[in-house]
């Protein structure tokens, strides 16, 4: 269920895939404030659908989600759109998890809980145009 951006001037679109409502709200609040257009997905399947339909510049993907987990969603998205950037934002933070996510194809990994500045920075870095 895509939601329209409340701030219209952002040039980059970020898809936030998270089943936790609090996390959804937090990310939307912070990224919109930073000038991005934010789409929200509540589970993995939604994330795949929206990503393929909307072609967001970046996907912020939780892992533990109902119906389809974030890693499977990422796999399907990358299979269809290899160039699409995916940042895994997970509360799984065992030492091996980060490696596991990067190996699965994540462009970066953001551990929950995160500093808001870190969230903005990783999104800014991966949405920046090569020419910029």
């Amino acid at each position: 269920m895509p939601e329209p951006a409340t701030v219209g001037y952002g040039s980059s679109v970020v898809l936030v895939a998270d089943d936790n409502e609090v996390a959804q709200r937090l990310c939307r609040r912070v990224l919109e404030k930073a000038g991005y257009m934010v789409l929200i997905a509540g589970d993995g399947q939604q994330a795949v659908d929206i990503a393929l339909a909307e072609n967001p510049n970046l996907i912020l993907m939780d892992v533990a989600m109902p119906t389809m987990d974030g890693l499977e969603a990422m796999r399907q998205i990358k299979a269809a759109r290899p160039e699409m950037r995916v940042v895994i934002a997970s509360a799984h933070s065992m030492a091996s998890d980060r490696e596991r996510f990067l190996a699965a194809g994540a462009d970066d990994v953001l551990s929950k809980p995160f500093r808001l500045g870190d969230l903005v920075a990783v999104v800014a870095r991966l949405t920046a145009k090569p020419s910029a």
Partner: protein
Amino acid sequence: MPSRTRGLVHRATPYAGLAAVLAVALATGAPGLLVFPLFLILVLSVALFDDRAQLVAIGSAAALAILVLAITQLGQMYNLATAVFEVAVLGIVAGSVHEVVRHAREAEATSEKKAEDLESVDERLRMTLEAATIGLGTVAADGRWLQVNDKLAAILGRGSDELLRMSLLDVTAEADRRAVDDALGQLGRREIVRWESEVHQARPDGRRSPVALAMAAISDQGAGQPLVLVQETDISARKRLDAMRDAVVGVRQVIVSASSWEQAAPTLLRSLCAHLDWDLAQYWSADGERRSLSLQTSSHKEGSNLDLDDPVRNLSIQVGGGLVGRVWQSGVAAYLDDLAANDYEQAGAERRAGLRATVAFPVIGGGSTIGVIELLAREVRHTESDLLSMLSTIGVEIGQFIQRAATAQALSRSEADHRAIYERSPIGIARVSGDGELLEGNPALLQMLEHDMETMRSQAWPDLLRAYDQAAGRARLAPLLAGITDQRGVQIRAATGGGRWLWLQLTATSIPDMSGRPEHMLVMVEDVTTVREAQDRLAEALDAQRGAFATLEKLDRTKTEFLSIVSHEFRTALTGIQGFSELIRDGGLETDEVRAYGGYIFNDADRVNRLIGDMLDLDRMESGRMSIRLADVDINEVMSDVMARASSSSTVIAEFKADLDPRLPIVTGDRDRLVQVVTNLVNNAVKYSPDGGTVTLSTRADGGFALVSVTDTGLGIPTDEIEHVFERFRRVRSGAAQSIPGTGLGLTIVKQIVEMHGGKIWVESAVGHGSAFHFTVPLAAEHATPLQRRHA
């Protein structure tokens, strides 16, 4: 012949003088008294020579001349009587002078002769002294040398001049000096006249030469000072022969009294050192393949303080290497007078230890060189050929001994070994004839089977063989008699004479006779009962251990999973708490926003709190630190209460249905805990019904218990997970259920609480149809019927 002419002149002169005096007297008519002294002088001069015949002739001529003068001058105052008187005087004087002269001559000749004699004696003595094969000399009472002959100088190894500035004591070895000094004192005081002993003289090169020393007091008439004649004989050759003889005797003594070379070697080498005066003796033994020699035994002379513990010392010698290697190779004794002067490459340590001379000889046994004995000395010395031949002889004797001893030892050892194996072996050994009869059984066999030899032979052994054949599954003994050795052995069950059952392992070996035909068999009988039992126990223990290990492994795995789940839950909750509090902190928010964010923060904080509470509860329950406060509880009221709260939550989309038995009696329980149980089950039902559905809460009485059920129409639990749902940290992970959050502790806590009440909990479920959780709580006592009590 001038000498004869001189003799004639000599003889003629008195006569000419006489004739002249007579002629002058006759011519001048000089009185006889005047002429007489002239005659007298003439006669006397002749008389002075020891020539009696001429004296008589001259005397007679002088007497005739006097008479002639007297006759020719008769009538003058000179007469015949006077002439006769003169002749008489002349004769007397001439005779006595002649006598005196003769006497003097004789005396002179005697003394001359004596002098000559003395001189020749002295010369002979000197020559004797010089030529003597023994050393001779004289010393003063204080030992100062006064005279020495060359031989003595040679014995003492010093020059004669040098000796004359020294004393006998100076050249005597220190050990003997005191005795020689004492002897000199006694000789000087004339307490003894002769002293003899064998002593050592110290040579300037440091060698000590053995001498037979004899001293005798002699007197010197001139000075009256006591003199001592010193006679020294070099007895080193004799000593050497004695030493060599003693050495051979010593070696033989050691050999006859020793039973092995190892035992004999140190003593033998020490004996060689002592008798032949070497500082060190080493035995180099050839290895089995005769490729190298290694130092086997090393002994040094008693009191000889040698330190050869040089780590780089070459303790292995190759064929032809160094003196020892050369002797080994050639089988011929050899020597080096001075290690320092020879390039003796193997002897670095020996040189450093101050050893100079060495001699090595082969130890020959069985026709080949089996080792080399090397003798070493601190001082340079010359090794004589007789020593070499003596050592070679010894080498052969030692070699024969070594071979003899080794053979004897090996024989006695193998015999003793075999006997000991048979007698003392913990393994039963049976010697069996070709047709299977027991010929001999060792003590262990009889003891093991608790039989005496007789019953063993007649009963137990045939039984044993039958069991063997059965177990081995082959015709009796035939393969064994054909010469096959059964290496693996066969295990059989056998009863002992005392009725115990044993597991025996039988291993048979056939022993061929001289022609190689199997003559009899040896059968080893081992009691492996404990091994078999231990194996069985071990297998059991291994199984148990495998189980325990699996449990441990599972525990470890669930613990890791638990940590992962718990941390995930905490971090998820903290994401909202941290993020929104950061937003609030940074300011610039509307009041509504702040309130909303505060609500998120509160909810997540509450969730964290619950998680912590669950963990602590479980810990307290499991460690037995949680108690329940039992009271009368209306379980229906609990169910209604929980349902009301659950359905009021805005997030829950499921429908609730209550099917409560209104006649259900009061139960005995802890209300708060029962609320916790029901709440948990209801929450699960909601949680695992993501697409909504119906959650039914029901109660009814069942025997002495209240049966409580929470049923949902949700995801259901896969069959293989059903038995695990009450385990700690265990959550349904398959399909849609995998991302449903939870601690994995809820049901574990529920089960604990139910069981603390004395009830039971179980689940029925099917994937896609939902789950039904049931638990029982005992009814309060006054409501329980007898039947119900029996159920309890």
